[in-house]
Structure formats: C-alpha cells, structure tokens
C-alpha cells in the first residue's frame, strides 16, 4: 500500500519544528513501527536524517512507542499501542499525520521523542511500597478479595506511556497518577504509605506543570490500556481523605 506521511520533524528542544511529507510503500501486515522503519531505511538510503522515535518491547508493554497518529494518541485502534497497531487499519492512498506527544510537561527532545522524566519524578514521589527483603512471601499469604485484586490489577496495567496527557485537552496527568495511586492503594501491601503516597504524588504532579482535570475522558478513551476514570475519582477521594483526616501536612 502506498501512503503519504506527514511527520513532525524537530531538531531539538529549542528548534521550532515542522511537518515534512514523505511517501512510503508499506504492506498491511506491518505494524505501524515497522512502517516507520521502512521510512527510515528509505531516508538513510537517501542520506537524510532518519526520524527519531522511541521503541523497545514492540509488544505493548514498555510504553515508549509514543506517537500521535491522525490526532489520536497511539492511533485509531482502541486499547492498542502504536507498536501493536497494524497497517491493515489504514487504506491505500491514506495520508497519515504523525506527531510527538503534545503537552508542555513533555518537551520534545527530537522529532517524535519527548522527555517523560516528569512521570519518573511522580513515581519517585510515592509510587512504591516498603517491603522487607529476604525470603519471598507466599503469594497467597494475605487474602485479597477477588474484585479488589482485579481493580488493582486493571490499574497496574498502566504502562506509563503518557498517551493520557497528550490526549487530554488540558495536558493533565490525572489518569496516570491515579492509576499508580490505585494500583498500590487498593492492596494491603500498599496501605502503609497510602496517605503519604497520594499527597506526595499529587503535589509532584502539580509541580511538574500538568493541567487540571475537567473530566473530559479523552485520556481513558485513548489510553492503550483503557485505564478507567474510576481511578481518578478514587484518587480524588483518597486525596480529600488524606488532607482532611491524616496528620500529614
């Protein structure tokens, strides 16, 4: 299939950046990243600078293959990362626009690669639990109700890609942060630091300059793991509870 690509090219963080148009020949069995590989091989042969984009696992679990494809984070297929998106979802002759994540807290490093270290700092602020090292504990030593375990697991599937922030018209990181708060806070293992965690992670999220949630829902709709808005509500009420009832300031 013949495609026209409009790809965002930006030399570095300071440069303005603009779209460049390329023609590529792909086939419908390729993943979107494989199609981008074809483009880069072509550019290298023409002695041009290849398009920088991040990728690692190519199986939907690392959260690096981040692109806005035709205005949608990770492209048109629901619940799918760019690496798992196949070209059969496009048609011969299509023009496809490819951009980096769009949010001030994710500055572009080069072309489609953005700096997501703001997410790392949110995790460092409280996205962990304290456990004793040594003998591994029996997996079933602490009974957890199935429903709660499933909710925690659903939240834990967040791969930290940042699509939610890019999809959000406000550039808010509430879906990501709430997924992390929920996945640890729902379980007894995460109970110990729970109040501290929600306070510190929200404070860090605000400090990094993410926007405020208007409950638009674009985050959840474009999230490759379909993380639910229930998590945002949970984080809000846990935040209120921590502020109003704990001794932490």
């Amino acid at each position, binding site marked *: 299939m013949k495609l026209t690509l*409009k790809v965002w090219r930006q030399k570095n963080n300071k440069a303005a950046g603009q*779209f460049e148009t390329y023609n590529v020949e792909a086939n419908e069995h390729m993943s979107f990243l494989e199609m981008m590989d074809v483009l880069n091989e072509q550019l290298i042969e023409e002695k041009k600078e290849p398009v920088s984009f991040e990728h690692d696992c190519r199986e939907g679990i690392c959260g690096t293959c981040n692109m*806005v494809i*035709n*205005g*949608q984070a990770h492209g*048109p297929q629901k619940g799918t990362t760019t690496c798992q998106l196949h070209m059969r979802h496009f048609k011969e002759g299509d023009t496809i*626009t490819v*951009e980096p994540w*769009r*949010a*001030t*807290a994710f500055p572009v490093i080069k072309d489609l690669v953005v700096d997501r270290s703001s997410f790392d700092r949110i995790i460092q602020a409280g996205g962990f639990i304290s456990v004793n090292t040594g003998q591994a504990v029996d997996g079933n030593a602490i009974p957890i109700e199935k429903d709660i375990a499933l909710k925690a697991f659903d939240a834990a599937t967040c791969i930290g890609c940042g699509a939610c922030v*890019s*999809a*959000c*018209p*406000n*550039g*808010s990181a*509430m879906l990501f942060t709430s997924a992390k708060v929920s996945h640890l806070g729902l379980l007894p293992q995460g109970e110990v630091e729970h109040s501290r965690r929600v306070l510190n992670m*929200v*404070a860090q*999220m*605000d400090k990094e*300059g*993410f*926007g*405020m*949630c*208007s*409950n*638009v*829902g*674009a985050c*959840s*709709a*474009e999230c490759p793991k379909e993380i639910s*808005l*229930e998590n*945002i*509500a*949970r*984080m*809000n*009420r*846990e*935040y*209120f509870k921590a*502020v109003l009832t704990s001794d932490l*300031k």
Partner: protein
Amino acid sequence: MSWITNFLTSSIGRKLLMSLTGLFLILFLIVHLAGNFQLLKNDGGQAFNEYTVFMTTSPLIKVISYGNYLFILLHAVLGITIWLKNRKTKGKTSAVASKNEDVTWASKNMALLGILIFAFLMLHMGDFWLKMKLNQTNMIDYGTGPIKDLYENVYNSYSQWWIVIAYLVGLTALSYHLWHGFASAFQTLGLNHRKYTPIIQFVGKAFAILVPLGFAIIPLYFKLFIVD
C-alpha cells in the same frame, strides 16, 4: 503556606471548589425555577408579586442570595483561571483534531459556555435586579398595601424579541454546561461507583434538558401568548 491554602490551591483542591460551587448553583437553579413558574399563573401577576415580597424581605433569603453571588463569582473566576492555566500546560495542540467519539463537545468547551452564561447573567441582572434596585418599578396594591409590580418589569422585558432570543441563547449555553457539568461535579468529588454513576449521568442529562427548558418556556410564553 498552611495546609488549607496548600489544599485549596492544589489541582484537586481547585476542582473541589469548582464542583461544590457548581452544585450549589444547580440547587439555586431549582429554587429559582420553582419560583418563576408563578409567572405562568393567569392572575395578572399577583402570585408572583407576592412571592417577590417574601424573596426580597426574608433575611434568610438575603444571606442565601449574597452567598449565591459570591459562589457565582468564585466559580467564574476560578473556572477562567483553571482554563488559562490548562491552555499553558497543554501548549501546542495536535495538528489534526482527534476523532474520538467518547468525548463530548461540552466537556472541552466549559469555559466558553461559562463566559456565555456570564454574559447572559449580566443582561439578566441588569434587566431585573438593577431596575428594581434603582426603583424603576411601579407599585401595585392587592389590598394589603402597595408592593413592587415586578411582574410588569418581566412583561416589559419579554415583550422585546431580542431579549427573548438572548435568553434562549443563554439557556442553551447553560444546558450544554450542565450536560457535562452535572455528572462531572460528582466525579470531581470522588463519587464514581458502578451502581450510582449511571444514575447520576442519567439525572444530569435530564436536568440539563428540563431545567433550561423550564426557564425558556417563560419568556416564550409571555412573548407568544400574553403580549401578542
């Protein structure tokens, strides 16, 4: 900073204030509409005028109405600052608009809708509240002493097409604002539950249609059936 200012200036704290003031305004809309329905009685305005005496003299209503002005201003000022901040944190938007069908137009345009509602409120307050305060109202006597004939003010306003149309525009904006805002306020409060959220969403949509419609009936009824 004390924990209170920290809380109320955090992203979630600011949204809490939006949600609580918004919910208060929703309650106010119900009371306001219930009172206004007396304009539809065919009694030349007696029920309405007697009701306004109570509304303008009761100390309780005074406190509530000043609270109401404060909350509208707080809601509007906070809403606009949140919107400005969010535009900065978003920065560049993508060149192609997302075709996502799960996202409502209203949810992305709350500030625009709010500004429209605010403009409408200015017109509305100038037309009734200011005229009443400036004593541009005639008196009428139903046998219990002279009282202000606010019904006449309503009649005069709603005999002009441009005012009726401005009301319809303002109420349409309110309807869209509530289409998203009603359920959103509960989500902000952390009330999202698999059993209750579908009910809240249903009630919110019904409210967003029926309440502005209820308000819209009054100027339309005046213009079409009483004046002409």
